[in-house]
């Protein structure tokens, strides 16, 4: 085992994609900062399959210096692009910049189904995140990173390996649990009429690659409290695109456009046909009827989530389940599917569950994981952080 410390960061090339496991250790009580790193920046990071969210701030207080939602995509500028076409003649673009220049770049998605599928792009993306959090490049970065519920050790190890030399200390925490921390209104803790979601709730975080469900009942969730399904926004997009290709052959709609249509018109429950949408295909305007295709694709998500939801409800103790049923919270991009809260609640009522209430987390649905991650970063003691060692 090497004793190399991240206090002397290695260049990216020194950590090949097939590098062996990254060793982590927890300091006994004192920080392992080098003298050159005079300040510490805390990062809460939701490394999503399609969209990521980063929040950063100092260890003390509640200030947030960086708050960004970024499409999880890296664009490598193609050879032969004329100077000036890409702003700043950069060779790598990230997020919206990459998407806006998609003609001139090779787009790579670092993540698939919530796990790192393109290590080089993932490393470049994390470096970009670091540069946002600490433009000077001199601070010690401590990052809490969300991972899918019940992520395997391999998934975690891939994140550690990718973060090696970029973040100095790291904590990997399940996303739905972080969402609960983020959703918690700290100013209302202790109020009689406030149900603390961290004390008793069931979080359903529907992302791009995975749908993660988690019982949050006042202790750190064990494996049986969490379910991660590899079926989420991307899978809906795929079903929708297949259906549209069948109904409208040669429609020329890109996956990106299909996702956009879903995000604008997606719904669950009985068919709301007609849902007519004008799209430009081959330069000509066409009207597509999406009602039934949207219902089929989006309801497939309900078919997966509902059994997992009832599984976790059944696992709650009888003492806690009545309150739990009042606090089922849906977050993530999937929470924006119209009718998802009412449909899940209706199904629970029909199945005899006692007065269930299913709520949508709200407008900050893209940020709750990162908010929770930054809260966790601020609360973590020195000896709770993992130090990445080479």
């Amino acid at each position: 085992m090497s004793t190399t410390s991240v206090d002397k960061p290695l260049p990216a090339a020194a950590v090949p994609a097939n590098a062996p496991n990254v060793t982590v250790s927890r300091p006994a009580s004192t920080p392992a900062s080098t003298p050159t790193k005079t300040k510490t920046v805390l990062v809460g990071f939701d490394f999503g399959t399609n969209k990521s969210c980063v929040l950063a701030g100092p260890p003390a207080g509640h200030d947030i210096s960086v708050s960004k939602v970024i499409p999880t995509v890296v664009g490598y500028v193609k050879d032969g692009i004329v100077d000036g076409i890409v702003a700043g003649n950069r060779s790598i673009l990230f997020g919206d910049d990459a998407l806006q220049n998609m003609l001139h770049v090779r787009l790579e998605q670092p993540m698939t189904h919530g796990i790192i599928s393109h290590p080089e792009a993932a490393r470049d993306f994390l470096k970009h995140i670091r540069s946002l959090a600490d433009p000077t490049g001199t601070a010690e970065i401590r990052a809490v990173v969300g991972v899918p519920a019940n992520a395997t050790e391999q998934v975690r190890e891939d994140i550690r390996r990718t973060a090696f030399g970029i973040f100095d200390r790291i904590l990997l925490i399940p996303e739905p649990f972080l969402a609960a921390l983020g959703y918690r209104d700290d100013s209302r803790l202790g109020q009689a009429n406030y149900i603390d979601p961290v004390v008793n709730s069931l979080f359903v975080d529907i992302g791009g690659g995975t749908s993660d469900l988690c019982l949050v009942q006042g202790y750190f969730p064990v494996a049986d409290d969490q379910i991660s399904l590899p079926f989420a926004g991307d899978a809906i997009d795929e079903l929708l695109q297949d259906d549209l290709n069948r109904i409208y052959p040669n429609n020329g709609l890109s996956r990106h456009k299909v996702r956009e249509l879903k995000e604008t018109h997606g719904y669950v429950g009985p068919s709301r046909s007609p849902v007519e949408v004008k799209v430009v295909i081959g330069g000509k305007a066409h009207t597509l009827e999406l009602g039934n295709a949207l219902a089929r694709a989006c309801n497939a998500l309900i078919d997966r989530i509902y059994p997992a939801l009832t599984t976790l409800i059944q696992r709650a103790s009888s003492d806690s389940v009545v309150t739990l049923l009042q606090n089922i919270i849906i977050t993530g991009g999937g929470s924006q599917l119209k009718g998802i809260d009412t449909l899940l609640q209706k199904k629970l009522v029909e199945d005899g569950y006692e007065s269930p209430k299913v709520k949508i987390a709200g407008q900050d649905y893209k940020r709750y994981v990162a908010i929770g991650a930054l809260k966790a970063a601020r609360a973590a003691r020195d000896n709770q952080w993992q130090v990445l060692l080479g």
Partner: protein
Amino acid sequence: MILNSAELPISESFTKPTWDEVRRIYRRIGVLRATGRNEEAADLEHGELPRVLTAARIQSSAPDQEEAAVFAEEAERLANATVTAEILASLLAERLRLPAVEPRAENPRPAATAATPRANEFPPAPPRPVPATSPTITDLLDGMLSQETAAARTKPRP
């Protein structure tokens, strides 16, 4: 390099069971009933079977069809096995000059054939006290780290 304290608890309890596991438990229930061990059969039927069935359904792209197919196939296999066993028992008894074994009146098929367990049938959860006061995040992180430590200790060394 070797991973040390970052080894985290990984439960595959939800992702591991497959339809094969459902088949195995279903057959076990059938065998237990056929041999008169009804209590054990009932335990499996109300405990293990719903759990693995739910897990298999969640992983399936067509859970209803697949479940129906699995149970139909296994019910047929059990019925065939029972008939074969009865024939064999009669032949053996005749050869050994022993009284033939009467076919069991009890249906050897597990009750699940008649009333297939659905996703909302689960074993009772162990009691978990919910704290009256809001826990601190630091305490929650301690809980996470103790889980990691416990998992690292129980993980077999290569």
